[in-house]
């Protein structure tokens, strides 16, 4: 198997992957939140007391970004198999 020796290219690809992990998770959370946000505003317009509960429900999809962020951090700083290839 051919071993890519250019550490710079590998490290760059790693950074792109890490960026995609957080970025796509963010887009997914946004898509999920658009409906929830609109619905919460609708309910709060009628029942102002619902605001706290509504905000909590609206923020639930944000947890997806944390998964994405965790994957990014692992890729960038803690994924050891790559370390062996990258190190010449």
């Amino acid at each position: 198997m051919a071993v890519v020796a250019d550490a710079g290219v590998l490290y760059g690809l790693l950074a792109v992957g890490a960026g995609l992990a957080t970025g796509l998770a963010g887009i997914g959370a946004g898509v999920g939140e658009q409906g929830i946000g609109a619905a919460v505003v609708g309910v709060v317009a009628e029942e102002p007391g619902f605001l706290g509960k509504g905000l909590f429900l609206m923020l639930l999809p944000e947890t997806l970004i944390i998964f994405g962020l965790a994957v990014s951090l692992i890729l960038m700083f803690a994924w050891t198999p790559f370390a062996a290839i990258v190190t010449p």
Partner: protein
Amino acid sequence: MPVLRLPKFGLPVKYAYITGRVRAMKTKLIPAEMYARMMNMEMAEIARYLEETQYKDEIDALSKDYSGVDLIEHATFANLAKTFRKLEEVSIDEPSFLILEYLRRWDVWNIKTIMRGKFYGATDIEIAKHLVPAGELSAEYLEELAKKDSITDIISAFDGTDYSSALAQYDGKNLASLENALDKLYYFRMERAVGGTLSVGGGLLLKYVRREVDIRNLITLFRMNKAGVDAAVILENLIPGGKLHGELSRMAGQPFGEFLRGLEGYPFWSSISDIASADMDAVSRVEARLKAYLIRYAWALSNYHPLSILPVLGYMVSKETEVSNIRKIVRGKEAGLPAELIEEQVVVA
């Protein structure tokens, strides 16, 4: 074979705001058990109770002009018009279009009210009190119409609109044919406007409306078959466009017992099976059950399509029913009807 139509990406989100809002509004509707309690209340008590609910503003505003039954009736109608206008104003795009199409039934109601008022010689002020400007025609426009001198003037005011063909049915002697034509026109326009869009939301609205037409036709059949009316007359009164139109048309003019046997097996049969019998004396209880079935149907459909026009539709039907229930109770009590008779007419889903 049913065709699976997937919504376009992002489309149901258009409904998120309005469905969230109507679901919150639904919690403010009067609970079903209150109707039984209202039957034991005095008129002033009912007005006081309504003041604690969503009708507060209207009761307060109208209490200087009216009292007793009139106050409650006008306040509930004013609130209905305000609520429906609000729904129309706070929605955009497809939901707004579909809500307006549904609310055109109140235009038809108002035109009928003005026609009836003119026919029986009521003054424009009296007519204006009974208008419910919840549809497309504004209160000012309707009041202008009510000020016109004769029925023919009103009919000519609609020249060039869709209504003119239905209003041309007026023969100068009675309003029945004109009112029938207006009802048919409403459903025809709905089918034309909403069916033409081929949108998922429009399809769902039509699904409900077709069932509604069936139930309205069924109520007509119950009344007329019970009275032994000629089949040709019944067929004239049936509204085309329902899903079961062909089957229901064949039931026109049947002997009552045979007609009831023919209904077994339809989805609405289970809601009336315990009270529908060949020797029943009045069909009002069946009518109330069928209307309740329709409300349950709208809400049941909305469980399958939570982000669609159906929750809004369910709310509008529930609200209309609530207002008509309150009216039935206060008018019934004022006329001194026995409680059981009023209870039969009240629609509880």
